[in-house]
């Protein structure tokens, strides 16, 4: 066990934890942030996607030592009032079916829009190809990302 400090959704946290523990378990088990989901545990499905310093990462294969002194954002931290364009677009398009993969989808989409406010279909496919949805909501996800992009541009 070691002391590991990092920031989650803007707050500093300090954990006594094995530094090899996957970030996913630190978030869910120790910090109670259960919005981030366990899917495959092998970085193959994207359900556990969070952001580290704004970049989408798979928390199931990211050891907690890798985020020491870094900024971690989970689905709970995307906004405090569902005002993030991705959240609004997801609600407006009614993207989820079962919803299990959606936190990961939304964190990936938000990471994409942070670097590309006007993504093409191809850009979306490239960015989101690692986020699987067994309900097959891909068409709605793509539509929602375009809508969120419009909202993001409209905010400026």
């Amino acid at each position, binding site marked *: 066990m070691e002391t590991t400090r990092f920031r989650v959704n803007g707050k500093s946290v300090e954990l006594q934890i094995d530094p090899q523990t996957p970030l996913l378990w630190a978030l869910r088990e120790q910090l109670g942030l259960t919005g981030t989901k366990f899917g495959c545990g*092998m*970085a*193959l499905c994207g359900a556990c*996607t969070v952001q580290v310093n704004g*970049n*989408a*990462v*798979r928390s199931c*294969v*990211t*050891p907690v030592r*890798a985020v020491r002194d870094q900024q971690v954002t989970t689905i709970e931290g995307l906004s405090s009032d569902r005002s993030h364009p991705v959240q609004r677009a997801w609600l407006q398009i009614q993207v989820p079916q079962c919803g299990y993969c959606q936190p990961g989808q939304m964190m*990936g*989409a938000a*990471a*994409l829009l942070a*670097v*590309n406010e006007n*993504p093409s279909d191809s*850009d979306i*496919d*490239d*960015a*989101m*190809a*690692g986020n699987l949805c067994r309900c097959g909501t891909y068409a709605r996800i793509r539509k929602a990302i375009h809508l969120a992009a419009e909202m993001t541009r409209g905010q400026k």
Partner: protein
Amino acid sequence: MICGVIRPLWLRVGIWIVNIFLYVLPVFLESSGGPRAQAQGNNESVLAFRAVASVLTSPRCLNCHTSADGPLQGDDNHPHAMNVKRGAEGKGSAALRCRACHQTENAKFLHGPPGAADWQLPPASTPMAWKGLTTGQICRALKDPAKNGNRSLQDLIPHMETSLVRWAWNPGPGRTLPPLSHEEFVSRLKEWIDSGAACPE
């Protein structure tokens, strides 16, 4: 009189000088890199490069040294799952960076994401794709600064010492190793460079 011919001194001196040129000069030329020595040096250089190429064309190198727009996987060089893209810098696309899954060390479980510091492909501008090239073509591409990331021959050596290249010899469970040890690989690379960096046809 058998030895009845008495040559004048100037003629005898001239014959000695001609003999010196006939017998000594070839030995001197051979020892100082004459055509035969050069050919032998080229052969040694080419042999050294063939050993280097056996590593460059191993799956651990080829999977990123590819002309495709994304990395490959496995010993059969199949396209990377999830349609992963190279990106301009070789570090993935905007929201699907290599670092999304690849850490600074290998995942400990079978078929988990491998990892090393600076995990990436060559950039799109110089993909340094070896797949489908002959050994001679790989050799000439490796020597060409326009194709090798603007490196001199000496610059190739520190590249082969990076943690990313060294990863090939510690690829994690389920992945084959290159055919030479890392030490032998670097040694043969230096040997190739020091012997003139000759390329096979």
